[in-house]
């Protein structure tokens, strides 16, 4: 604009140009992204084609790590275990979140209290403290069996001793942390115009019909968003398996990320660890893409 009377800009004026200032402001992110994300990712891809422990120089072995993975029964097992965990815990958690959100959408004097109580577990749930607590609760002589005994149910289940029950214990912990999804659903529910429900009432629709014809379709963007978030974090779950079950019994609860950690930092197979990390990232990435592709089949966006 003032080009003609400022042929030469001072250093200060240059710094104050939008194009320059923008870069300066965003620089911390650019540096951090390159140093701690982009370059490490590229390195990790490179290492995944090598045999590498921290002491020796990496030796290029082509696709061997990737081929070895599928011949490693422990790898196949941890992959399936993690998928099983995700398949049960993610939908159950979302279902729970949606049901409680529907319950709490009604505003009463106790709404704030209810919301706080249902939300709390998701804030503390991934901590070691809760993992330790969970382990103790589900021990054979723990409080869960004690309470079951009090109401006359079988009280001698070795929760952490059986393959199915140990997995169940971890899934219960995951479902227990539905709070943040619930808040997102609650925000979504509050945006649905009341007029839609009123119109439906006039037309003689009952509650069930209103739910399936109004609530559910209008919530699909929120469900979609929650689903993707929860899938990613589900596949990356670590603390639960590492602290509560240590993968036991017989590696039936050994999560992928725990095995990845063990390979890299216990057995020192860094090349193999990188290959595992890339395999999981690509798998989750493709899964996310697949869900994105299906979204026009079931996600309803208001035009």
């Amino acid at each position, binding site marked *: 604009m003032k080009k003609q009377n400022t042929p030469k800009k001072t250093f200060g004026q240059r710094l104050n140009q939008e194009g320059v200032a923008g870069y300066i402001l965003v620089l911390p992110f650019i540096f951090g992204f390159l140093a701690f994300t982009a370059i490490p990712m590229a390195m*990790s891809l490179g290492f995944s084609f090598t045999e590498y422990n921290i002491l020796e120089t990496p030796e290029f072995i082509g696709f061997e790590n990737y081929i070895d993975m599928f011949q490693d029964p422990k790898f196949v097992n941890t992959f399936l275990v993690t998928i099983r965990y995700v398949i049960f815990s993610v939908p159950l958690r979302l279902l729970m979140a949606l049901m409680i959100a529907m319950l709490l959408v009604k505003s009463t004097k106790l709404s704030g209290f209810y919301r706080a109580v249902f939300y709390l577990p998701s804030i503390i749930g991934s901590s070691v403290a809760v993992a330790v607590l969970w382990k103790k609760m589900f021990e054979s002589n723990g409080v869960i069996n004690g309470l079951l005994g009090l109401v006359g149910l079988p009280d001698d289940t070795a929760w952490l001793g059986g393959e199915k029950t140990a997995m169940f214990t971890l899934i219960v912990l995951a479902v227990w942390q539905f709070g943040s999804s619930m808040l997102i659903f*609650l925000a979504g529910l509050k945006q649905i115009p009341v007029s839609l429900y009123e119109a439906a009432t006039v037309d003689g629709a009952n509650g069930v019909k209103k739910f399936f014809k109004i609530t559910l379709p209008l919530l699909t963007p929120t469900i979609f968003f929650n689903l993707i978030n929860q899938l990613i974090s589900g596949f*990356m779950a670590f603390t639960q398996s590492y602290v509560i079950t240590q993968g036991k019994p017989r590696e039936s609860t050994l999560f992928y990320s725990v095995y990845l950690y063990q390979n890299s930092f216990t057995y020192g197979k860094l090349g193999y660890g990188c290959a595992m990390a890339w395999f999981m990232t690509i798998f989750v990435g493709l899964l996310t893409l697949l869900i994105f592709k299906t979204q026009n089949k079931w996600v309803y966006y208001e035009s």
Partner: protein
Amino acid sequence: MKSYKTKKIVVNTVYHIFTFVLALVMIYPVVWMVMSSFKETEDVIRTATDLIPDHFTLENYVTGWKGFAGIGFGTFFKNSFIIAGVGTIGAVLSSAVVAYGFARCNFKGKGFWFSCMLLSMMLPFQIIMIPQYILFNNLGWVGTFLPLIVPAFFGGAFFIFLNIQFIKGIPMDLDEAAKIDGCSIYGIFVRIILPLIKPSLVTSAIFSFMWKWDDFLASLIYLTNPLTYPVSYALKMFSDPSSGSDWGAIFAMATLSLLPIFFIFLTMQKYLVEGIASTGMKG
């Protein structure tokens, strides 16, 4: 009319009984742990189904505080506060600056870097875990707090995103007016934007602190000396059968470790709820 009113009271009562019982079930594990921490240690299992301790005692807190291997929990708490505190300061400040750049300035390649930021929100830590370890190992940082703290100073994608949303809600007129008064782009940030985005700064700080406080995997990888362990790692070691299994003491320390989170939760719930509702962050 009367029957309608009665019906409403019945429905309300049923609603509250149902929701209240459900809430109790949800909160029971936490209450049970806190109550158990005040029981005599041999009673934790013996009277597991009783919520109220027979004999109320603080002894578990005294024994637990002594920690293990000669290192008290005082040290572990100090470590956690340093890691979470310094990391949070770094994350909040850098994210605010970066968000301002994204929200208010047009520069070449903005779209590209913005996509990189969105991408890094979705990326799992595992994919960069090993090369990051190698990097920090070469820098000689393994065994110190630096790998846990330094990356936070380059902006956290979630916090940048949250701040961008907030800054975009501030009318551009304010920027324009300041500009006419001779304020530079940086001056506008310090004088106009920063004071106005306090809510999103607070929300970022809360989440950053809680995530850093709970973080376990990174300390497992980078910290080698028990003197540098944060509470989360120490608690894992403390509860391992090799360090003894004084469950009263373990629950006492677990309760203490959750205390900062409880405190934030009770005082800052408004910010937490808004943060989650507006960005969909996980809690």
